[in-house]
């Protein structure tokens, strides 16, 4: 067989899937449809009145207040930033971090206790055992399905919408709506991830415990938690970082995080302050990102928690 024929044969025999092909077509159609709406095209942004608005925004509104009239220098800029930080930014930064920490801890507590119940290898009548084709118990399948559905439901709604609904129901002026919204959404995500990691555990240690007479609860406490904690913690830190990012924005609903001061400054048209607080929020997200990456790397490299 010549080489060209060989290549043709390989191409013919390559695995093909109608599902993949139609998914591609559907996605392509979505993208084409979305850009065929000319209202979405960016060109009008740089024409007519908008250019003047943009110029005014960049040259005047965005410039920090002490620098606007040109008679004061960078020293005043520092004073301006320090005053803003002392009056509003510092406390809001700490609140943002506290909201994310409390939320991710609640989410983890929920996910790490319920997670094993959604795992296919534990949530059966005979945990960690090979069923060898025997039918599994209906009750346990129901438990597993219910836990799985609970996780799906918890993470279905975005945090911002959850918090928006909760602010009205629980009243404004405290951080519970943000904590609960972040906690609920992340419990759903961490729950699914921890259930998956339990399913991927090596069966040998679990089976060894089983044959020496361990019950399901013994398995979870003595094997599943210790074996999974490293993996779970990497998820934990990864989600903590996204929590910090999200909770900066949740403040715009009137909850005392950085977003609160952003929407406050926006309402007063103090765009220099908006810029300052947006920058501050970016900074703490970068710091949280860095800390979480460090924590995850050290978890990956050594199994320090075994």
């Amino acid at each position, binding site marked *: 067989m010549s080489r060209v024929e060989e290549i043709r044969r390989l191409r013919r025999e390559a695995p093909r899937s109608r599902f993949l092909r139609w998914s591609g077509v559907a996605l392509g159609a*979505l993208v084409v449809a979305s850009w065929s709406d000319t209202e979405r095209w960016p060109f009008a942004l740089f024409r007519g009145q908008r250019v003047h608005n943009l110029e005014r925004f960049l040259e005047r509104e965005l410039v920090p207040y002490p620098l606007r009239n040109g008679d004061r220098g960078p020293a005043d800029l520092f004073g301006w930033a320090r005053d803003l930080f002392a009056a509003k930014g510092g406390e809001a930064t700490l609140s943002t971090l506290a909201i994310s920490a409390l939320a991710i801890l609640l989410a983890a507590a929920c996910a790490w206790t319920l997670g094993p119940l959604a795992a296919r290898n534990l949530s059966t009548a005979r945990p960690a055992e090979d069923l060898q084709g025997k039918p599994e118990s209906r009750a346990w399948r129901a438990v597993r399905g219910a836990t799985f559905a609970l996780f799906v439901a918890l993470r279905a*709604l975005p945090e911002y919408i959850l918090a928006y*609904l909760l602010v*009205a*129901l629980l009243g404004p002026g405290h951080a519970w709506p943000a904590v609960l919204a972040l906690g609920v959404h992340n419990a759903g995500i961490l729950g699914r991830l921890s259930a998956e990691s339990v399913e991927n555990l090596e069966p040998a240690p679990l089976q060894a415990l089983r044959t020496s007479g361990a019950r399901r609860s013994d398995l979870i406490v003595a094997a599943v938690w210790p074996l999974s904690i490293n993996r779970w913690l990497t998820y934990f830190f990864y989600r903590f970082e996204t929590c910090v990012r999200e909770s900066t924005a949740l403040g715009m609903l009137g909850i005392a995080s950085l*977003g609160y001061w952003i929407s406050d400054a926006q309402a007063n048209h103090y765009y220099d302050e908006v810029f300052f607080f947006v920058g501050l*929020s970016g900074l703490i997200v970068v710091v949280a990102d860095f800390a979480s990456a460090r924590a995850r790397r050290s978890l990956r490299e050594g199994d320090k928690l075994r």
Partner: protein
Amino acid sequence: MNDLRRPFPLGPRGRLLVAFAFAGALSYWFLGLSLSGLLPARGAGDQLGAFFGAALHPAVDYEASWVPEGAPPFLSNVGRAMLETLLLAAAAMSFAILLSIPLALWTSTSFWQRQSRGAAGIARKSKLGRALLPFVRLVIACMRSVHELLWAVVLLAAFGDHHFLAVLAIAIPFAGTLAKVYSEMLDEAPTDSSEALAEAGLAPGFCFALGRLPRALPDMTAYTFYRFECAVRSSAVMGFFGFPTIGYYLKLSYENLYYREVWTWLYALIVLVLVFEAWSARLRRRWVAR
């Protein structure tokens, strides 16, 4: 032996638990929370009942007593808003992917590598590329670390209302995230095929494009789908800033206390998210474990 050495009666896991409890208590105290805050606000008790009571009876028609002549049926509005949410997500994702590709290539080490015969992986970056690398990394970090809603605030203040701004507000942070993850995936992809191609004498660019990239592509595609899912959620939330996605109508109905309509919007969003999640999960399974 271990027990004698321990200065503290707790193992590493126990200490972690204590640290977590401490962090939680500290946050709780700092935020000034109390458990009574979990009860419905004063006067909102009835509202709470009405809200959750409406969950079983989502609206299929306008709840308002008066609807202007010629208004489209409620459910057709729901369909339109769902479509608009999807379209905004698709526009934002396509734009984000376009933005992220140059950034990802720039920041990945493997793109700059020259694979010479025998000694694979000697990094020899071009001078300009290396000089600008920290700057590009900084740009990516800035794009990523500001939330899409905060981008929307800034962009709307700068330009005024425009539909492209919703696309841009989602696309900027998403492009940053995609760029970071793509470049990591490119660097972590198996090197065997690109080494083999270098061995056969191919130019470095071809080694990268034909050897490295295809090995990372399944993971990259899977991750892109996951982000698409996130983009659908973000696109719905963009409605809170006046763009005609689900969030806009949800807010409107909630402010008018039309709770049954609110539940219709919530169910519409949940259906959208779940269908997309199931679709993307199935695609990812096919792609990664083929």
